[in-house]
């Protein structure tokens, strides 16, 4: 079994090649690098901690199984591959078990004196999450991949198995729906419509 001496300095591709040889330490390093991003992605799409954790676990198990067939192609590749797997798993899970809307989200923040700024930020976060969850699944996925993962239309189209024009159309409709919701919640001024 090939072992890498300095895991922290190794590239993702080198780590995946070591994982293909059965190196558990390399796999752990890959998890430490990419689990946070993938959890955030899954949570934005699904709106649930538990479901996001399940999806990420499954994605990394797939990475372990896929590692022997991995063809190195660049630094961003592993993240893109994981993003695609997580997105597809989220879509599958959502179709099986749609999550409940986060109607209780407004009450999570603590409106104590001296924490007004934090409370306002927190409230906006939760309201934004609620508005995102109200979007249809494909629109929400496109928004998350575009805004929070910073992917271009072509990359989103590849992940979602759509044409770039269809992705652009999804994004336009999602923005319109989000604006409408945010204006109705007084988070956004009506002139932006």
């Amino acid at each position: 079994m090939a072992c890498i001496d300095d895991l922290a300095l190794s590239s993702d591709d080198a780590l995946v090649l070591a994982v293909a040889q059965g190196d558990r330490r390399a796999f752990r390093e890959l998890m430490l690098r990419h689990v946070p991003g993938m959890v955030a992605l899954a949570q934005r799409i699904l709106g649930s901690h538990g479901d996001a954790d399940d999806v990420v676990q499954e994605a990394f198990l797939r990475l372990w199984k896929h590692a022997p067939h991995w063809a190195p192609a660049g630094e961003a590749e592993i993240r893109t591959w994981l993003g695609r797997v997580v997105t597809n798993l989220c879509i599958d899970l959502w179709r099986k078990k749609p999550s409940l809307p986060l109607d209780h989200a407004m009450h999570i923040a603590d409106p104590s004196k001296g924490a007004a700024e934090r409370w306002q930020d927190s409230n906006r976060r939760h309201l934004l999450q609620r508005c995102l969850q109200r979007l249809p699944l494909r629109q929400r996925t496109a928004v998350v991949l575009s805004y929070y993962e910073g992917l271009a239309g072509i990359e989103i189209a590849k992940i979602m198995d759509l044409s770039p024009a269809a992705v652009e159309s999804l994004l336009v409709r999602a923005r319109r729906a989000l604006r409408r919701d945010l204006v109705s919640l007084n988070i956004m001024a009506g002139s932006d419509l």
Partner: protein
Amino acid sequence: MTLPNDRETLDQLLELYDPVEPISAERLALLVEKIETRLSGDIQNNPTETWKSRPRVPWNDAAFARWPAAALVFLLLGFGAGQWLTPHRALTKTEVNQTITKYALFQSPWQKWFD
């Protein structure tokens, strides 16, 4: 809640207020541990991964299961070769009659009555 500036656009809102807070160190450690546990389970249950390291369970071991199949093939080949190599000859009329008589003993009385 104070209203934001009129010029605040949706794009800025989405970028400013990421609805998901960063994952905590405890949650990350727990998740990594869960994945490693599931991985260990998967390797144990998947004979193609590291079947040599698994405890040998005869009824669940691919190597063990190959022996009966090999023995059966060997027996069939042996039987076929024996049939092919054994010299054959036509039965005589006496042998035929003896065989008929022998099996006639096992016929039912009703059969004899109809004959």
